């Protein structure tokens, strides 16, 4: 049984993204975690391209890898945390967390294993292109778009006020 090119690309991207996601939660050094998360975000952008969501892939790279992760890295370097060791006094909490996460994984896999979905075909769908998304965004979803600008404004004001030194 030959695997199609799409499945091979999917498998490689998935393995890289899962390994680097595990690296985020398992590495001791926060800077390594940030770098692993950036690798995960790039592989997710690759998945977006394979799913014909080209605009979202570009926005994802710009927003996540370009803005959010730089902010994380900046804060970590500002705090000089890169060698800090977390206190390991309660090890059983760690095991309990890992077991709970694994149990959730099993439950979700068991519930969605037989989900009734139709397969996707490789090939060009027009839905992810910027003209199509722009028309949808500015016709059907123009009110949420404006509300999100208010959200950004309030987030900016909140970040400035919280980050200010004691007035």
């Amino acid at each position, binding site marked *: 049984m030959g695997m199609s090119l*799409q499945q091979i690309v*999917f498998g490689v991207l*998935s393995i890289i*993204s*899962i390994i680097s*996601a595990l690296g*985020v*939660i398992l590495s001791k050094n*926060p800077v390594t*975690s*940030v770098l692993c*998360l950036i690798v*995960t975000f790039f592989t*997710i952008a690759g998945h*977006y391209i394979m*799913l*014909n*969501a080209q605009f979202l892939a570009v926005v*994802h790279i710009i*927003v*996540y890898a370009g803005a*959010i992760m730089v*902010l994380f890295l900046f*804060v*970590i370097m500002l*705090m000089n*945390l890169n060698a800090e060791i*977390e206190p390991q006094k309660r090890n059983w*909490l760690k095991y309990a*967390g*890992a077991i*709970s*996460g*694994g149990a*959730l*994984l099993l439950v979700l896999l068991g519930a*969605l294993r037989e*989900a009734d*979905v*139709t397969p*996707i*075909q*490789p090939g060009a*769908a027009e*839905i*992810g292109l910027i003209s199509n*998304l722009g028309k*949808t*965004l500015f016709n*059907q*979803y123009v009110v*949420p778009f404006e509300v*999100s600008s208010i*959200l950004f404004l309030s*987030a900016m004001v*909140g*970040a*400035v006020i*919280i*980050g200010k030194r004691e007035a």
Partner: protein
Amino acid sequence: MPVQYYIFLSIALFCIGVTGVLMRRNAIIIFMCVELMLNAVNLLLVAFSKMWADAGRVDASGAQIFVFFIMVVAAAEVAVGLAIIVMVYRNSQSVDINIMNRLKN
């Protein structure tokens, strides 16, 4: 290619994020795990968008608009959350969330 593959990948990424939130004590790592969970959901939404587009629905790009709004909210959340973490670090010289139980007693 079955959409199940994307469902399984999203489940795996989401559960890795949940496990990270439960296991780690560093507030910044916990925050990154929340981002990971948001991205798992985004990936699933994009996969379902593609599925419905292949099935012939004309409004399948609505899911991608949702992903766009989730990214917007995540960016705003990161700005405020990192400001809070910096403030906590400034007050207590640590980002360990175990010190944030002062309301308990």
